[in-house]
């Protein structure tokens, strides 16, 4: 299996966010919100850092 770099980021963010959401909050609604927040932050940080590294490498 050879996923693209971005696909690997999405998979990593998905699984990690599910565990963070369940373990770090107490009610289902808050678990869902925190899981979604973690997912967006993981993917967003990966995109931003990727652009930063691309600009530095130029």
């Amino acid at each position: 299996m050879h996923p693209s770099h971005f696909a690997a980021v999405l998979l990593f963010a998905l699984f990690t966010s599910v565990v963070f959401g369940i373990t770090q909050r107490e009610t289902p609604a808050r678990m869902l919100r925190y899981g979604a927040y973690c997912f967006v932050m993981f993917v967003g940080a990966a995109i931003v850092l990727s652009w930063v590294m691309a600009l530095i490498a130029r």
Partner: protein
Amino acid sequence: MVTQQDKSAGAGKGFVYLPLIAGWLVPGAGHFVLKKWGRGALLTASIFGMFVLGLAMQGKIYANAHEILEFLGLAGDMGTGLLYIVGRAMDLGSAPVQVTTADWGTRFIVVAGLLNIIAAVDAHNLRTGRKS
């Protein structure tokens, strides 16, 4: 308002460390012991999925530690409990890392172990009434 006394009252009886140990050995089992079926199923799917994907990407399972980074990887891998033992017994993840995805796979396996430890501690907190 939920008081600490109310939370403690929700704690069950029996061996207090059972959810912690079960959760470490089998991802999600700690929550199953506490009859948290939905949470347990999601944790099982996430941690097991991450471990399997890591192996599918030809990730490495650490077998020994000759330096500090390998020791940290080994500690993370051992967090997956029985998955680590079965993986080692079946000689999975022993091929040398040769492609980029294998490096990501190695990280997936380590993080699956770390997430499993978080999940097991969460099950313990549920058991002791520290979390509801």
